[in-house]
């Protein structure tokens, strides 16, 4: 059982800072004027303030919190999109980020072309995608529309395709940010089943959702974020109950 004890995600005292874009300078002239007037004040905004937690291999973690509490920021930091200015994040293994379904879809291209484009964005090889092509198409249920430009897809259809591509491989860490909210009821069930399959196969899940029920159902552990701080960490049921009461 030693493998199960292995830490797969370590988040150590992470701080993330943004420039609040109140007076973003993006023109040279403005920049010079502001520089001369000593107005280059950057209003710092701390999106995450000292988050620390460890995830073991195979665990499912839910992240709950109000809008703007830093949930997505945390997931982006773990995926390596944002760099913390203090603290660090250690990851072991491959990460499949579902920050948004179908990131990298090009509306002008057909579904067929987008499968390859998006697959490569996620780091798959072309041969692998060719092999899995039918599986992806069947899961997303878009076979009739394979040669339609993606801009003519409904948002639910595009989301289905995105999910199918992202989960066709068994990643070590699956990061889901509110992605299932768009699909219809049936598809949500299908996705949950796919996620459960992955989980039982040893994938680690980090899951953001506003649906408390879903978090309770899917996850064992949970984190409650509030204004960038960790308000609570522990068993999913306890955290969710307290969160829904607040």
């Amino acid at each position, binding site marked *: 059982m030693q493998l199960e004890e292995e830490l797969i995600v370590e988040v150590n005292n992470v701080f993330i800072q*943004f*420039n609040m874009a109140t007076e*973003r300078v*993006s*023109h*040279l*002239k403005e*920049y010079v004027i502001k520089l001369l007037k000593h107005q280059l004040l950057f209003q710092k905004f701390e999106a995450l303030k000292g988050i620390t937690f460890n995830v073991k291999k195979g665990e499912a973690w839910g992240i709950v919190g109000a809008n703007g509490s830093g949930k997505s920021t945390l997931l*982006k930091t773990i*995926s*390596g*999109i*944002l*760099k913390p200015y203090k603290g660090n994040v250690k990851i072991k293994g491959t*990460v499949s*980020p579902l*920050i*948004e379904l179908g*990131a*990298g879809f*090009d509306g*002008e*291209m057909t579904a067929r*072309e987008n499968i*390859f*484009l998006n697959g*490569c*964005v*996620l*780091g*798959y*090889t*072309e041969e692998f995608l060719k092999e899995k092509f039918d599986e992806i198409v069947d899961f997303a249920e878009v076979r009739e529309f394979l040669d339609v430009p993606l801009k003519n897809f409904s948002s639910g259809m595009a989301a289905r395709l995105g999910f199918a591509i992202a989960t066709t491989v068994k990643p070590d860490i699956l990061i889901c940010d509110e992605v299932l909210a768009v699909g219809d009821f049936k598809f949500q069930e299908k996705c949950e089943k796919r996620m459960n399959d992955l989980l039982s196969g040893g994938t680690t899940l980090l899951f953001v959702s506003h649906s408390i029920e879903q978090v309770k159902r899917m996850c064992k552990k949970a984190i409650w974020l509030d204004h960038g701080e960790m308000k609570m960490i522990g068993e999913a049921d306890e955290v969710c109950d307290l969160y829904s009461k607040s």
Partner: protein
Amino acid sequence: MDKLQKMIKGAVKNTYSYRGLLKQLVTRDLKLKYRRSVLGYLWSVLNPLLTMLIMTIVFSHMFRFQIVNYPVYLLCGNIIFGVFSSTTIKSCHAVLDNAALIKKVYLPKYIFVFSRVTSGFVDFLFSFAALIFVLLITKSKFSLYNLLFFIPCIEIYLFSLGMSLFLAQANVFFRDIQYLYGVFCTALNYLCVLFYPIEALPTNVRFFVENFNPIYLYITMFRQCVHLNVLISPQMVLRGLLWALCMFVFGIFCFKRSQEKFILYI
């Protein structure tokens, strides 16, 4: 030195592991460029050909420059300058256009610049068909020197890549760059000796162009092997390589230094 070697090795390995994505991005650029046009890729050949035709008609009747085989002279300059200006202008937006992707997936960001420059060069290779066509029509002589054309092409590819990396990162922080650079390219167009002989320039301008304009250098090299059918002067090859390497390193340096801040500005 050891550290540098390791760094280069790492970068090459990293780029190699993303070759699939690079290929997809390049094909996307090419596919979308001519999607829904009847002639499709043929435009990559027709475009330089028609431009050359118009310029030949205009300049050979109005100015009467003493240049042998004027159409070939013109086309050589045009396609080399064209590939430089079009790739660098397109690359200004390379990071910004892919903002949605950069915000959501971790990817090496230089890949977007790399793919734009590369798709521009694939387009450039298509335009060789136009060049060969004109060479045949004008009954130009062919020789083994022609085969050296790849030297200026590789050098200008490196140079464009460096320039593009610099422009793409600068444009994230100052959106003025794209407009400024457009004007700069227009000015450069007239300083690259595209449709007139170098002798037409006043002495001091000529000195400047011959010594400090790398694009003119690449055009001259290309003309030496394609238009004049002579050996490229080795001294020029070295100078061109030096320009290209310096620009390339400068571009990488600027891009690497600022890439982690992109996400806060896009």
